[in-house]
């Protein structure tokens, strides 16, 4: 691995990040609003109250505008695994492809077939069939989230598979382990409930804006009531599963946790940073400091400055105030006292695994079964470090994720999430007391909830994905090995095209959306 084209790797990463972040602007609203539409239609179906039909049809219009661009930005993600990460597609396609296919067969068809009924079937099918269709759209879109998050969870915690040296890939051996991967289950619940939270923020923001403008107040208040209850329950579940996520990260991706907390040196009884910032302005400095440290030149500690909660991190990560939480330094240099091997050792071990695999292939070709079996055994013993082997001769800092981005994303997300809990409660109480019209400050906070919601959504993904760099598959395959070998300029061109096209479509979406909202419920 002497000739790594970093510009190709980084442009490919940038393209995936760009398309994924754009896609995620629209997905959360689909996931949550679809259920809210189903609830609205159910109330209408049960009570026959036309008010709810009118309310539903308004939100349905906004749903449609959002859905179209969600579909447009989504198609590329599935295919990008092939176009830009072709080695990945072979190396783990035997496991990773299955959830993607199941997503198509089980979820996408349900979503797309019944969405046509939901929009255009009002006079073509019975009321009951229409209601069922609306529910099926919600179920379908959430099922698609399930399968794609199973796929993502597997990348973070690859289980249920075994490496096959003859086909040179990982192969599935236990489907249920892949599906019920604890990381996947938690990730699924955390992601969809956060999406419901976002949808509730959207409904409240639009309604608050209409109330400020003095338009359709009654409809807006009913929508707000539904959204505040829906949102409160959703954010509660998001916070609980967020805690679960932290524990899993501590267990399966300790480097990510260290980056999330900006924890340089590990300790027992580690405190949690409530609000703070890394003391070095740039990652480069942070990483340089670690580099210097490793070389034994400079023992400067790099720390996060901020408000600390004593023992917080140890409890958050391991439910034990005295648990040891490894820092970046412990993971890179190793900590024999805590039984943590250094990256140097892991790289050496990974190199043994990769070389044993090459030797196995050679022996097999020569028909030397005995030698092949010997090499295979060595490979399997060191397989847990397989991906580290590719870093032989590389800068060790490549194994450290971008700390500042991860730290700031994580903390901002947590602060916003905590605020949402309070916010939904305030809105609910105010609606019940029927005094929300007088509370202009709450209405303004309601409108601001939308950009805050976007931020929390995107930052969550940045924490999860930037924090696990350089791994596409944790400990087994780094980005530099997964990437397709195409010309960097090619990727730069498609990156620019995606940026231009998606931005143009986003502007169109926002313009159409705001125009439709201005017209209110009655139009």
């Amino acid at each position, binding site marked *: 691995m002497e000739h790594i084209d970093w510009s190709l790797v980084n442009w490919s990463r940038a393209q995936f990040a760009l398309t994924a972040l754009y896609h995620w602007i629209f997905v959360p609203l689909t996931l949550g609003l679809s259920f809210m539409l189903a609830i609205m239609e159910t109330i209408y179906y049960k009570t026959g109250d036309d008010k709810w039909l009118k309310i539903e049809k308004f939100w349905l219009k906004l749903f449609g505008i959002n859905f179209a661009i969600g579909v*447009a930005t989504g198609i590329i993600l599935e295919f990008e695994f092939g176009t830009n990460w072709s080695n990945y597609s072979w190396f783990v396609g035997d496991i990773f492809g299955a959830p993607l296919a199941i997503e198509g067969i089980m979820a996408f068809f349900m979503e797309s077939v019944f969405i046509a009924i939901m929009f255009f079937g009002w006079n*073509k099918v019975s009321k009951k069939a229409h209601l069922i269709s609306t529910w099926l759209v919600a179920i379908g879109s959430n099922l698609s989230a399930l399968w794609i998050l199973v796929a993502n969870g597997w990348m973070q915690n690859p289980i249920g598979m075994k490496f096959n040296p003859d086909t040179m890939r990982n192969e599935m051996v236990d489907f249920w382990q892949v599906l019920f991967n604890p990381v996947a289950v938690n990730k699924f619940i955390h992601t969809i409930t956060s999406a419901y939270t976002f949808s509730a923020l959207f409904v409240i923001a639009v309604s608050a804006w209409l109330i400020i403008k003095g338009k359709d107040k009654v409809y807006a208040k009913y929508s707000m009531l539904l959204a505040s209850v829906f949102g409160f329950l959703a954010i509660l579940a998001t916070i609980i599963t967020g805690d679960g996520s932290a524990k899993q990260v501590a267990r399966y991706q300790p480097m990510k946790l260290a980056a999330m907390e900006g924890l340089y040196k590990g300790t027992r009884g580690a405190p949690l940073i409530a609000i703070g910032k890394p003391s070095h302005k740039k990652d480069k400095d942070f990483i340089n400091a670690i580099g210097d440290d490793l070389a034994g030149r400079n023992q400067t500690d790099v720390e996060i400055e901020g408000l600390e909660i004593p023992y917080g991190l140890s409890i958050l990560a391991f439910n034990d105030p005295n648990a040891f939480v490894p820092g970046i330094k412990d993971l890179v240099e190793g900590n024999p006292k805590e039984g943590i091997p250094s990256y140097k050792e892991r790289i050496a071990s990974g190199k043994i695994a990769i070389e044993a695999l*090459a030797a196995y292939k050679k022996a097999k070709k020569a028909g030397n079964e005995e030698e092949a079996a010997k090499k295979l055994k060595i490979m399997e013993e060191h397989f847990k470090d397989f991906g580290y082997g590719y870093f032989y001769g590389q800068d060790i800092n490549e194994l450290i994720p971008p700390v500042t981005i991860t730290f700031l994303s994580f903390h901002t997300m947590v602060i916003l999430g905590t605020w949402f809990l309070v916010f939904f409660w305030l809105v609910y109480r105010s609606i019940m007391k029927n005094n929300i019209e007088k509370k202009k400050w709450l209405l303004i906070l309601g409108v601001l909830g939308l950009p805050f919601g976007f931020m929390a959504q995107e930052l969550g993904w940045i924490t999860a994905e930037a924090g696990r760099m350089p791994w596409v598959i944790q400990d087994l395959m780094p980005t530099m090995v997964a990437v397709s070998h195409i010309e960097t300029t090619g990727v730069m061109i498609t990156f620019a095209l995606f940026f231009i096209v998606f931005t143009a479509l986003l502007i169109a979406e926002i313009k159409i959306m705001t125009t439709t909202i201005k017209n209110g419920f009655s139009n």
Partner: protein
Amino acid sequence: MFEKLSYENLQHYWWFIIAFLGGALVFLLFVQGGQTLLNKLAKTEDEKTVIINLFGHKWEITFTTLVTFGGAFFASFPLFYSTSFGGAYWVWMIILFAFIIQAVSYEYRKKKNNFLGSKTYETFLFINGIIAPVFLGVAVSTFFTGSPFSIDKARIANLNNNVKAVISQWESPWHGLEAIWTTENLAFLQNLALGLAVFFLVRVIALLYTKKMVDDQNILERANKCLKRNSVLFLIFFLFWIIRLMFIDGFAVNPDTREVFFQPHKYFNNLIESPILLIFLLIGIILVLWGIFNGIFKNDEKAFWKTGIGTMITVMGLFFLAAFNNTSYYPSTYDLQSSLTIANSSSSRFTLVVMSYVSLMVPFVVGYIIWAWKSMDSHKLSKEEVKNEEIKY
């Protein structure tokens, strides 16, 4: 129950599913065909609304079929996914961009304050309508004419040399676009012919669908005129492609050594050696032609289904022709031994078993698609009816 099948049977079963999805996709591309006919069929704004709503109620099913086709191919034949998508980068990117701009166009075209203007969204639909069938047709034709790539799975275990750890390597800087100008064995003629055949075929199916579903004299008259022209063009390109296919050398696989070699008239031989396949393919082609004939001369409303289902069967037949009977379905012209076969590119036995259980959902999915389709198509579309709809494109 699937556990009892042999690995080879499972691989063939999955090739069947891929062929089924591929066939369904080409049939459903009639939505794209319709998009290219918008200005031919509609001369007034009201007529345009009819045509847009006619195809707009179906575009998501076509879109989803494409996505599922991709996902299923990934799950069952991942080496194809990594080789073709990562290699023929430009072809796939062009196809994907064409679908990206389609997805918003129906919804945004008539909306107030839509930033780009109605004309732009109509142009998006037109571009999608041309690129999707032509490029997908060309891509399928390379199943028979080959592409320049090499595969060496062992490269991933290569640490200390100048070779990149890349399993599949495309050996042309044009990344797939070379399919339309490769002169070797006149591959470009063959590839373009299938691209254009698919293009005119999906227009024909779109016209038959218009005849079936639209209640408007002016539109129908124009549809009849277009139908004749497009049918003739389809026949010219398709017959050229399939007749020439019978004469070219094919990529055969030696079942014992798994070595790939050129065999004269390979695809013709495949048909002779498996008469079932020959009959299957003929049924498909006859249905296509029967539908076209009835559409032109008899005003048969079921002509759409005849040609549509005939298209599905024909495309499935072509997928079988490309892969069964010891044939390489994705051959490499750069290094024959890198060619992909059903056997060397599939998922593991375990994954295929799991996925086979998943495939049991397909009839259920087809069932509710039929229900939804029938419910939505129970009335013909007319200007008045579309006008009275509260929610429309």
